[in-house]
């Protein structure tokens, strides 16, 4: 007998997780598709389902002096329309799927699902976002990028769930998300780039580039990014080719049914050029 869970509170959810192994579903917009079966039959999800969509206490946006916190069941649509949310994240969500999906889908689900093409993931990593993860016994924080171990794999323990996302407040004079999909809406990214940058008195003081769909995980290399800190805008523009060359080894895309490795690589590098062209 399979026991599915439909908790109303976080505590109920964590108790269930403590006692049994579950597949957590928030919006279901990825999982229902992944486990789809014939029409008029139920999806074949291998584990019992823990449906946390009704856990109201996780549906919130909270601004603090240090960070913005987004509860795990907050739908993307709500995040997109909140004035508390950084513009780059709003813009990213606008590019994800279509309104119907955004009413159900959650950012936490986007992270746990760990697709290398997930647009939300890409921007959250560029924003240096943290996750608050809880089990019945403990609570811990982890960087978004550290929770992902590979395509569709995360490092959450069986009894753990994401309860919130924390986006640290930071200086960002120029933050942009470029999505290159097969069409202009409702498409999975062939390549994407989230850039979170701050320029103070013509000097780079913050620089994060995160690339989607060009490797098994979102590509974000903090060491490469840090080499940009302290550079003058003019120098950045002058050395565009060298900077692109610096990122080049990190970009390792594949051929698949949506695009080619050659195209993805060239476009990813061209998008760095676009960031630098737009830099001010």
């Amino acid at each position, binding site marked *: 007998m399979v026991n599915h869970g439909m908790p109303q509170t976080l505590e109920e959810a964590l108790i269930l997780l403590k006692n049994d192994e579950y597949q957590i579903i928030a919006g279901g917009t990825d999982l229902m598709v992944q486990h789809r079966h*014939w029409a008029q039959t139920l999806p074949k999800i291998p584990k019992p389902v823990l449906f946390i969509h009704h856990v109201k206490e996780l549906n919130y946006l909270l601004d603090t002096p240090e960070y913005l916190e987004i509860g795990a069941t907050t739908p993307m649509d709500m995040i997109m329309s909140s004035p508390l949310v950084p513009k780059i994240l709003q813009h990213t969500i606008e590019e994800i799927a279509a309104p119907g999906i955004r009413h159900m889908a959650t950012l936490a689900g986007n992270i746990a699902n760990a697709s290398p093409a997930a647009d939300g993931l890409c921007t959250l990593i560029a924003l240096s976002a943290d996750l608050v993860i809880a089990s019945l016994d403990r609570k811990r924080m982890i960087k978004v990028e550290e929770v992902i171990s590979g395509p569709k794999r995360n490092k959450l323990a069986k009894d753990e769930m994401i309860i919130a996302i924390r986006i640290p407040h930071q200086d960002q004079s120029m933050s942009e998300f470029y999505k290159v999909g*097969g*069409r202009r809406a409702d498409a999975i990214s062939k390549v994407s780039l989230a850039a979170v940058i701050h320029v103070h008195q013509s000097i780079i003081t913050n620089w994060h580039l995160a690339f989607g769909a060009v490797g098994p995980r979102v590509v974000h290399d903090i060491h490469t990014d840090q080499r940009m800190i302290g550079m003058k805008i003019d120098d950045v523009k002058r050395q565009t080719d060298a900077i692109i060359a610096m990122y080049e080894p990190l970009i390792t895309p594949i051929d698949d*049914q*949506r695009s*080619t490795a*050659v195209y993805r690589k060239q476009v990813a590098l*061209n*998008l760095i050029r676009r960031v630098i062209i737009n830099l001010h």
Partner: protein
Amino acid sequence: MSDISKSIPKLDAASKIAGEALYVSDISMPGMLYAKTVRSTIVKGKILSIEKPSLPEGYFIIDRQDIPSRNVVKIIFEDMPYFATDHIEHYGEPILLMVGPHLDMMDELIKKIKIEYAEATPLFDFKDSVVHYEYAKGDPKSVFERASQIIEMTYETGYQEQAYIEPQGMLAYPEVSGKMTFIGSIQCPYYVKNAVIHALGCSEDQVRVIQATVGGAFGGKEEFPSLMACQLAVAVQKAQKPIKLIYEREEDMEVTTKRHPSKISLKASVDEFGNVQGIIAQVSLDGGAYVGLSSVVLSRAMIAASGAYTFHHLSVQGDVYRTNNVPTGAFRGFGAPQMFFAIEMFMNHIAKATHQDPFAFRMRHLARQGDQTSTSGKFRDPIILEDLIQIATQKAKYHQKAKAFSLTDQYKGIGMSFFLHGCGFTGSGESTHIKATVRLHKLISDKVEIQVAAVDMGQGLKTTLPKLVAKILEIPIHQVIFESPDTDVVPDSGPTVASRTTMIVGGLLARAAKELKGVWQSGIDQVITKRYEQPSYIEWDEATMKGDAYPAYSWGVNIVEVEVDRLTMQVKVKNVVSAYDVGKAIDEQIIRGQADGGITQGIAYGYLEKMVSQKGRIRQKNMTDYLIPTSVDIPKMETILIDNPYPLGPYGAKGAGELTLVGGAPAVCLAIEMAIKRHITKIPATPEYLMELINHE
């Protein structure tokens, strides 16, 4: 009397919006069973053994051993079995049906079926020609000998998927009388009926076919449903229960017929004045594992070899190649979209190669009334293509924009295509193969019932045919009844294909209505029947492909403006202007609907919709990976209609269903060419391909 073109609300809109219209998947019957298809998981080879599980009561496996008569689907070329023989010729070939009352149990049972194969080497290249046609006009050999310049190019086109919103589906059940009835999402009720008669070896009165509401077809439901019907016929005979077979989206995209990929080589002989004297064309189509109706697609492509131009000397050869890809089949345009892409790009490429202004060059070669057609027939009726071009270029500001975009490096472009589409079946097909019959039945209540086998699949027949009849009879439209066809009631007015229905079936209905009006007696049951008669001037020799290929032609101009992102090579369609001559619109709004949908599908064929077969398997098998345009991808479109009534069409109407698709691909590709200053020879012109062009030139 008001103009027939003035739009009225579509008569079937309310029932569709209210969710009352019944699609085959909505229909359930007492004791109904489901069917699912078990398919080959190899591309080519031999079935060594099939291990079947023991079945619980009420479950059945149906395969070729159950077939009472012939294991072949009756299409034009009879080579496709409806249950695989020992030899597998393509991935996903149907081997057997699992039939039963519970889908989940059927799934379990299917997993227990073990099929052992011996794989063989599949063929994907154009090597095994199964159909070869050729025709000539004038004396191509001598003009090539005298040519001052010879230009040669090769063009390639890819698959296109119909992407109807409703997947393939059919329900069949036994009647007490022993008759078998089929309800399906179909375009051609009599194709299905004849295929079943052929498969069961039964008599005509043993099979009845009824059309359910159809959620889009685009040619995809022309011949393919016959295969499902043959399988179900055998299954119902065995199970003696109603059985419903509905395809899953991915199953549908992986195995059902799609547009033929093509390779078209063109050679032009150009004289010292820069005029094309003659063209030599070689058209190659990938027919997939079974030929089916590919020969007819080939002939339509070949006949379109001179595009909307007149060339006095032509030599056209064509082949359908058998490969181990999934079979290709009917799709809106039927060979013409491939050829119009090639010839329109070629005309532009000739102009470039001979340093001429492409517009002036193309205008000089336009077909005119009285000219010989490609197949040495005659353009008898007035051609108003120049009027269409003039109004479209004005509205789109074509000349100003073309000049500005050609000279600068702003990655913007504007492209224009000229095209025509022959209405109805090729040659004497209407009189020799189809022999359409229509009937008007006036009931005692003075309501008039339209009895034809034509199917409304979204294109508006449920409105246009009653509108025609009501108008001629001068009665209110609600006094005219047009039910979805049931072969026990309606005569065979032919398949709903080839842009023939309004012109041919509508034309016959108009004649029937005129006759009925003359003999109308209130309160009396009256029946008027009309049969197709070929216009006496039509002469067609099928063997040499000489004569009048079509009784009439519709014409069009598409202008598409694009912007290309120079870093990502993504194409943004900025503006679309079209002008069409469809004779006379029976309902203007319905024609505009056809125009918007057709050009969207045509443009997307040119730059967006990518489907490839990798070692025999379709890689883009769902709507996530096979991208069709959304409303965000397509701008507001402007469509101009100019009346040019065809004397034999009802109120002057000609064909319109396919015309609006065939010019989309060349128009968008010519625009992209202007934007990136490179030759495009392949569609879809995806960003990946454009990047390659930019990198390698």
